[in-house]
């Protein structure tokens, strides 16, 4: 018994509980930020900002689930950033930065496909793109997405359906010119 108690205490003090709750989310947060911004340094800046806030406000969290709480902080930073960005009109043409920012080589076939996908994604309304990324890429539950975006569950469900229909349409439209050029 004494043994077990000792080993329990050991494993409990192994990792700082705040680090144990937040650090596993960091890879996903970086991915979410970069799926919005495509600029690695800028995206990481916002993630850093998000983490500083999460650590600083940890005590004010009051029982909310950690994952949607942290994603909501980042999401709001991204929305604010995008708003300022659009106003200043300094958006980087996305095809120029895709391959580099996403950290993959610009290999021929896959590169084309990825580019189509990114272009279609960027053509979606922001609210649809957001739920698509949070669900399909980040793997958040529908309830978590509702908490992150701050809308009712039903709204999330209709946004995801409309977003997927729109994405499929955009991808089909993107394919047509290429088929024509082959003929």
């Amino acid at each position, binding site marked *: 018994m004494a043994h077990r108690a000792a080993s329990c205490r050991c494993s409990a003090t192994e990792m700082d509980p705040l680090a144990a709750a937040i*650090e596993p989310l960091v*890879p996903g947060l*970086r991915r979410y930020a970069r799926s919005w911004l495509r600029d690695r*340094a800028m995206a990481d800046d916002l993630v*850093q900002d998000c*983490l500083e806030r999460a650590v600083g406000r940890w005590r004010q969290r009051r029982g909310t689930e950690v994952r949607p709480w942290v994603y909501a902080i980042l999401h709001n930073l991204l929305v604010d950033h995008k708003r300022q960005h659009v106003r200043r009109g300094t958006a980087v043409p996305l095809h120029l930065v895709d391959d580099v920012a*996403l950290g993959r080589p610009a290999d021929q076939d896959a590169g084309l496909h*990825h580019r189509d996908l990114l272009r279609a994604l960027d053509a979606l309304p922001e609210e649809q793109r957001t739920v698509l990324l949070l669900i399909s890429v980040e793997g958040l539950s*529908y309830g978590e997405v509702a908490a992150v975006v701050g809308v009712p569950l039903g709204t999330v469900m209709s946004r995801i359906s409309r977003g997927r229909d729109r994405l499929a349409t955009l991808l089909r439209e993107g394919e047509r010119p290429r088929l024509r050029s082959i003929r």
Partner: protein
Amino acid sequence: MTSPIGEDDLAAWIDGRLSPERQRLVDAYLEGQPDVHARLREQAEQARALASLFAPIADEPIPATMRVAAIRGRQRQPRWQLAIAASLLLAVGFGGGWSSARWSGEPRAGIAALANEASDNFRVYAADRIRPAEIGPDQRAMLIRWTSARLGERVTIPDLSTAGYRYGGGRLVATPHGPAVLLLYDGPQASKLAVLTRPMQIDKSASMTSTSSGTMGRVTWAVDGIGYSVVGERPAAELHPIADEVRRQADAGLVS
């Protein structure tokens, strides 16, 4: 009694998030709706493509600055404490720098290595007429973001205009101790100056040390695990006031 198939069921079918009972129900529905089935299969494929497109980002090692311990460490130290620490170090550094210059004894390994890295890089890049800096002076923010991410430390660009030196850009350089930032400055009569900065493993804190390498003077020190070396084609004694200014700004956390 079962509730009818809804949009939400179809979305959850794509994501594979239906309960077993609901899954059976939706599967049966789709058998009779080949068009809907085809559309959902296509969308499920697109969802998977989207996930795999961004997946590699999550495999990248996270920057050290994103560790909770690193964030806490920064947040725990109140600003006034930093200010006092900086002024103390400034006083110590002033005395220490002068005396060690007079002793002309062997400087400790970490700082000595940094001084040599500074003059080596100065020799290569300050003399470069085509592209001395990788990131020009108009892109300070980009250089700060880039090099801070690589060094795992917040990089600052000192403003040395009061000393007559204009910031001319910077670059990330390689040293035997990992990446370092080289900041280049243009002074009077086409004179050049550079500041090399990198995290220190050995001399985490060291007072200002003046050394020379050929015609180059170097003033080198470390504060809180970050090493600095100011290098130029001038005697080290003349570089000392500039080094003091660099340290003052770095300690104050002034970011340009």
